[in-house]
C-alpha cells in the first residue's frame, strides 16, 4: 500500500489520482447515496469488463498498435458461448474455455495481419470488427440466445463475501497484467517495441512474434471480458459490445496509455477506467439527464486531461 502511494507520488499518476479524489468529493457532497461500499462495489462491477479487456488492450497499445475488434470479439464470445450452452447443451466451463480460445486465436490472427502482413492496425482490426459482427448476427440470426444453466450466472453475478466475482476477476487480471508488463521480459518487449521497434529488432528480439503475442493476449482478455459480460447479462445478444472498444480505449488513454505506444501501465489504466465509471455512476445518482450527462462528461474529462497536460508542461519549464 505504501509502495503504491509512493509510486503514485513519484510517477505521473498524480493528476489522475487528484481527479479521482475530486470526483469522489464532488459526488459525495451532492449525493448521499454515492459514498458507500455498496455503491463502489457496484461501480467496480460495472467497469470490470472494461477493465479486463483494458488489460489486453494495454499490451497492444504499448506496442504502438490498437485493436478495434475487441467489441466484436466480445459480441462473438457472447453469441458463441450462448449458442454452445443452449443449442448444443455444453457445460458452461468448457463452453467458456472454447469461446475464450476462439478470441485468443482471433487476436492472434489480428496480430499476424499487423505484424507479418504489415497492415495498419486501425484498419485491419476495423475490418475484423465488421466481419466478427456480421458473423455474430449470422450465428444468432439477430435473436438473443438465452436459458443458460443456472450455475453459469455465478461468474458475472455471484459474490465472494461482499465482493462481486467480476471485481475479483478484474483484480486478479490486473495484478497478473501488472506483473507481466513490469516484471517479465516479454512484457518489457512490448514497451521496447512501442518505444523503438527498430532498435528492439536490432537487439535480436523477434519483434514480429512479440507483436503477435500482444494481440493474442488482447484477444484472450476480450474473451474473458465477454464471458463475464455474458454471465452478467445472462443472455447472448448480437448487440452486446457495440462501442465497447471506445469505452476501453478512452478509459485507458485517460489513464496515461499512449496511443503512440511505449507508454502506460496497468495502474494508470485502471484508474482511468474507474474515473469514467464513477462519472457515469455519479451523474446518474444525481439524476442528470442523458443529454446533460454527455455534456458534463465531456467537460469533466476535458478539464481532467487539461489539468494533466498543464501539469506536465508546467513541470517541464
Amino acid at each position, binding site marked *: 500500500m505504501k509502495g503504491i502511494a509512493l509510486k503514485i507520488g513519484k510517477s505521473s499518476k498524480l493528476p489522475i489520482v487528484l481527479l479521482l479524489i475530486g470526483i469522489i468529493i464532488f459526488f459525495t457532497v451532492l449525493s448521499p447515496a454515492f459514498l458507500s461500499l455498496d455503491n463502489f462495489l457496484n461501480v467496480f462491477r460495472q467497469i470490470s469488463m472494461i477493465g479486463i479487456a483494458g488489460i489486453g488492450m494495454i499490451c497492444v497499445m504499448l506496442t504502438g498498435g490498437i485493436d478495434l475488434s475487441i467489441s466484436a470479439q466480445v459480441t462473438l464470445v457472447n453469441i458463441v458461448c450462448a449458442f454452445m450452452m443452449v443449442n448444443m447443451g455444453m457445460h458452461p466451463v468448457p463452453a467458456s474455455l472454447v469461446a475464450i480460445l476462439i478470441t485468443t486465436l482471433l487476436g492472434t490472427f489480428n496480430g499476424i495481419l499487423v505484424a507479418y502482413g504489415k497492415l495498419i492496425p486501425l484498419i485491419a482490426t476495423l475490418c475484423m470488427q465488421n466481419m466478427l459482427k456480421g458473423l455474430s448476427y449470422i450465428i444468432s440470426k439477430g435473436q438473443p440466445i438465452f436459458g443458460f444453466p443456472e450455475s453459469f450466472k455465478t461468474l458475472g453475478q455471484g459474490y465472494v463475501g461482499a465482493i462481486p466475482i467480476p471485481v475479483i476477476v478484474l483484480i486478479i487480471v490486473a495484478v497478473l497484467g501488472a506483473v507481466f508488463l513490469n516484471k*517479465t521480459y516479454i512484457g*518489457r518487449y512490448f514497451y*521496447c517495441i512501442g518505444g*523503438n521497434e527498430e*532498435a528492439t529488432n*536490432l*537487439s535480436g*528480439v523477434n519483434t514480429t512474434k512479440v507483436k503477435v503475442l500482444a494481440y493474442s493476449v488482447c484477444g484472450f482478455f476480450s474473451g474473458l471480458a465477454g464471458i463475464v459480460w455474458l454471465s452478467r447479462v445472462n443472455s447472448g445478444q448480437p448487440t452486446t459490445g457495440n462501442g465497447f472498444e471506445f469505452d476501453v480505449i478512452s478509459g485507458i488513454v485517460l489513464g496515461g496509455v499512449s496511443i503512440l505506444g511505449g507508454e502506460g501501465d496497468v495502474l494508470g489504466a485502471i484508474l482511468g477506467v474507474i474515473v469514467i465509471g464513477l462519472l457515469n455512476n455519479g451523474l446518474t445518482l444525481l439524476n442528470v439527464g442523458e443529454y446533460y450527462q454527455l455534456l458534463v462528461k465531456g467537460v469533466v474529462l476535458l478539464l481532467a486531461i487539461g489539468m494533466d497536460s498543464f501539469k506536465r508542461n508546467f513541470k517541464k519549464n
Partner: protein
Amino acid sequence: MENNNILSVQEIVKEYPGVKALDKVSLDFRKGEIHALMGENGAGKSTLIKVIAGAIQPDGGVIYMDGKKVEAMDTKISKDLGIAIIYQELMMVPALSVSENVFLGSAVRKGVMIERKEMDRRSRKIFEDLGIKIDVRKPVGKLTVAYQQMVEIARALSKDARILIMDEPSAALTEEEVQTMLQLVLKLKEAGVTIIYVSHRLDEVFQITDRISVLRDGQYITTLNTKDTDKTELIHYMVGRDLNETFPARNCRIGEVGLEIRNFSGNGVKDISLSVRHGEILGLGGLVGAGRTELAQLIYGLRKPETGALYLDGKQITIRSPKQAVRCGMGLIPEDRKQLGLLLDFDLQENISLPSLPRISKGIMISKKREGKMAQDQQTALNIKTPSMKQKAKNLSGGNQQKVVLAKWLGANCEYLIFDEPTRGIDVGAKQEIYKLLNQLAEEGKCILMISSEMEELIGVSDRIIVLCEGCKTGELTKEEFSQDRILSMASGT
C-alpha cells in the same frame, strides 16, 4: 582462408535505388585486433556493418564466422555468434530506463521475470568502468545525445562480445570521454575481443588500431597496417586525392557586434553574456552537460530566458519562438540532426526549402521551380552526394544528412548562425568543406556561434572562444590565448 580470421566477408553487394552502397567488398578481420573502417561519408561503412549484424540482407556475398559460412544472417544469429554493435544511429527506447536500454533484448532474467536490481547493478558497474556518472534509473529520453551515446556503448560492452563493432562511437563525446572509452577498448582487446572501429577522427584511429581498411564509393580500396602508414596516405586513399588535414586559413575582417546577449539565465544556464561580431566565429566550448545546447535554445527562442536581453545589431529584440528567430535572420544547426534537423521521410528538396518556403512562394503558392533551383544550388555548393534531390533524407549517409541541414540555412540567407556540433560524424573531406563554408560565411559578414566538443576544431576555427561549465561562463579566450590546457581547465571549472 587464414586460421586467425575470426570474421570475413566475401564479395558483399548491396544496392539501393540509384546507389551501390557496397560493391563486392571483401574483408578479413583477425582475432583480437582493432580494425578501423575508414572512408568518406557514404562510402558504405555503416552498410557493411549492418550486413554483418544481419540488420539488412545483402544482395550478394557471403559471411564467414570462424571459417564457417553463415547462412541468412539475422540480428538474432549475430547476437548468438557474439557480435555486438554500436550503431551510428542511436538505438534507444526513450521511455525506458538507462539500465533497461543497456540490456535491451537481453534482459537479465530468472525464468520469465526480469531482474531489475541486477541489471541496475551491472549497468552501474559498466558506467563506472567508463568513468561516467549517470543515473541508471532515469529514462533514456531525458538524456542528451552524448549520454545516450554512452548508453549505446554500455550496451555493447554488456554483452561480453567476441566481436565488438563500433560505428562512430566517439562522434558525440568530448575529448576526455573519448580517451576513457579508448582505454576501455584497449582493455577489451587485451581480453581477446576483436574490435571493428569506425570513426572520422584520425587521431583516435592512429592511437588504437592495428589495421585500417578503406572503403570508397562502396568499393574496397585497401587495408593498411596502422604502424606502416600516416594520415596523409590514409586521407589519400579515402578521398582519392591529396588533402591536408589542417584548418583552412582565413583573412578575417571582423566588423561590428551583431548578435549580443546580456545576462541570460534560465533553462539551466546562469547569467551568460556574450557577443558575436559580424565576420566573427565565436567558439563555445565546454564538457558535455555544460549547457551549451541549452544556451543555444534560449537564444533561438525555443525556451524562455528568465532574465537577460538579446540585441541584434544593437537593437534589443525579444525572441519568443524559432519562427521569430528565423524572421530576424537566425538559423540553428542542431546537434541531433535526425530528431531536430531533418524530416527523415521527406525528400531533400523539401527539407532544404522548409525555412525559406514563404520567401520562395508566390503568394501562398510554392514555386516548385524556385524550390528545385534552390535545392540544386545547395547541392552543388555543398557537394551533397545523392542520386537525386528527390531522395528521402533518411537514405543519405550521416555526413550528407548534415550537409542537408546546413543547406537549409544557407538557402535561407541567415545573418546569425548557431552551429551546434557542426561536424559531428562527418568525414575529413566534408569537414574541410564545412570549415571552408564557415570561413566563407564569416567572410560574408555573418555572425557565427559555434558549439564544438572537438578541441582542435574549436581552436582551429574560432576567432574567439567562450567556455562554459555547469551553465556558467568560466572564461573567454582571444585567438592568442588559445590552448587546449586552458580551455580544459576552464571547462572543468578548475
